[in-house]
């Protein structure tokens, strides 16, 4: 047997099947305006937007070691930028969404320079302070309704599409597109040199420094990308809500606690985790939400138990048991003779 019969493989049968299934699912979801009801589409949009927030938080905490409890800063910032660009610059919401993302990435640059001075858990609380600063600052802008917030003018909403069902289909597709975009960006990022460096940094900062990896720069790039995409997602969230206020826009429960819950339950540090987590989260919510505060109590308890008993989440358990991977990220040595 010659050594050439060994190759490095990234894809596997499971990942190829997952890719085919994923494309079929995507086609079915894209066709939802023709088969789903109005309420279903709203729920699906919300699921997609939470999925994209969860994937982005997971990219930060699970891959770059940047545990943030202040991502609501960028959700709210994106939302407010959408309103500001649409109301004062006369932009169509469709153009304002990517621009809000760009502005979110821009504001993340000075923010990162400041809070990257804090380490670990102190970094986490530092991100929260930033979110508070954003919330208090936007509450001071009277043109955007100050502390009580404002609604998106009807004219701007109507100009988006000719009729109501077309408008709803558009926002639905935007939400679906956002989730797909986030997944693709993160997937490509993790397969790139940058992703390899991130894995190295996560495993050992000391060793990766010795290999010449600039830790600060890599984390910075990830933080800025995540901020931009989070801001775009935030713009979409408030395009669906049509109303924004500082407390709703910068809510730590809605945009960070739930997102952390999704990632922890699903499995932190895997791409599959947030997908599983978002399904579990919405199943729980649709069945238990009537319980109000008790529902949140249960969420908190479940998160603690999972963190203590199964820190890799549901997907971690599946992966450890069956060794499957739906997104081909890791490399395996394959013996061709055995495979054929």
């Amino acid at each position, binding site marked *: 047997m010659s050594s050439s019969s060994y190759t490095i493989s990234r894809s596997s049968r499971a990942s190829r099947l997952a890719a085919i299934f994923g494309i079929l699912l995507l086609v079915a979801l894209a066709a939802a305006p023709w088969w789903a009801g109005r309420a279903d589409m709203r729920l699906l949009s919300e699921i997609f937007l939470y999925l994209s927030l969860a994937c982005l938080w997971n990219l930060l905490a699970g891959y770059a070691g940047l545990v943030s409890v202040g991502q609501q800063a960028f959700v709210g910032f994106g939302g407010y930028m959408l309103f500001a660009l649409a109301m004062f610059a006369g932009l169509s919401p469709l153009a304002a969404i990517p621009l809000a993302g760009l502005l979110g990435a821009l504001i993340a640059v000075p923010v990162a320079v400041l809070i990257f001075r804090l380490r*670990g*858990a102190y970094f986490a609380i530092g991100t929260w302070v930033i979110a508070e600063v954003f919330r208090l600052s936007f509450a001071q802008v009277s043109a955007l309704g100050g502390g009580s917030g404002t609604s998106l003018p009807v004219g701007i909403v109507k100009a988006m599409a000719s009729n109501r069902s077309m408008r709803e289909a558009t926002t639905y597709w935007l939400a679906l597109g956002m989730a797909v975009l986030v997944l693709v960006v993160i997937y490509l990022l993790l397969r790139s040199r940058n992703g390899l460096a991130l894995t190295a940094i996560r495993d050992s900062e000391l060793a990766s420094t010795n290999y010449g990896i600039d830790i600060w720069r890599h984390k910075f790039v990830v933080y800025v990308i995540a901020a931009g995409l989070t801001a775009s997602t935030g713009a979409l969230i408030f395009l669906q809500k049509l109303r924004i206020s500082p407390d709703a826009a910068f809510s730590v429960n809605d945009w960070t606690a739930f997102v952390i819950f999704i990632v922890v339950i699903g499995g932190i540090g895997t791409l599959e985790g947030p997908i599983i987590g978002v399904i579990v989260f919405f199943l729980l919510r649709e069945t238990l939400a009537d319980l109000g505060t*008790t529902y949140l109590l249960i969420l908190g308890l479940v998160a603690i138990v999972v963190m203590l008993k199964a820190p890799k989440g549901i997907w971690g358990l599946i992966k450890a048991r069956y060794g499957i991977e739906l997104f081909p990220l890791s490399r395996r040595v394959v013996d061709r003779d055995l495979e054929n």
Partner: protein
Amino acid sequence: MDWINAIIQGILLGGLYALFAAGLSLIFGVMRLVNIAHGDFIVLAAFLALSTTTLLGINPLMALVIIVPVMAGIGYVLQRSVLNQTLGDDILPPLLVTFGLSIIIQNALLEIYSADPQKMNAGPIETASIAVPGGLNIGVLPLLMFVVAVAVIAGLQWIFYRSALGRAFRAVSDKQDIAQLIGLNKAHVFGLAMALSLAVVGIAGVFLGIRTSFDPSIGPGRLIFGFEAVIIGGLGNLWGTLIGGIILGVSQNIGAQINPGWQLLAGHIAFLIVLAVKPRGLFPRID
């Protein structure tokens, strides 16, 4: 004159913030744990004090005698039963578990006490004031709180650097494994550290409940004030934490003097300026 008054009130308020911060600083120093639920424990202590005063009909200041040991007990049990399991090289588990705790405490308080703001009444001492030269009046209660805060910091400083317990704290903080070898049970020592931290939280909670109105949602805000005081003062420096609290209190009051909407913002901005100029805080401990 308003300005001088704002500054004096800010200094006194800073004492309360130092109390928020001291417990946070202590457990970080001993076990590198940041308790995200710290602020919610402060609010929990305030609500426990509220129940105690209404149940027993005593002055809230007297309730300290009950609240402080109860909070210390909660701290010890919590550390031994849950938080010790999360400690290790990975910072994620303690962070997320205490984040979960924060949500649990907030919603449990909401369930029991509703979202209505509450306040405790400490009697005539609340309105008593001392006239000082220059036409200023200093409230007896804020002054008392400030004095207690200074005493608590001094006490913690003494425990940490002069007592056997403090030696145990410093030993496990420096090298956990070696501390175990010389006969310290680190699980127990960590439990005591958390008990001490929540005992301070108990004092802070009672004072908070007398000074302002409170409701179940204000915990995270108190955590942030405490955290800012720690970072402004310099990590690991208890006296620095007191000065950090004072700087925060004074900035907030100056901000409020300019425009009521700027009160909290001014405090956060003072914190960000310190972070930009002296990232290790104003008085970092020399290691």
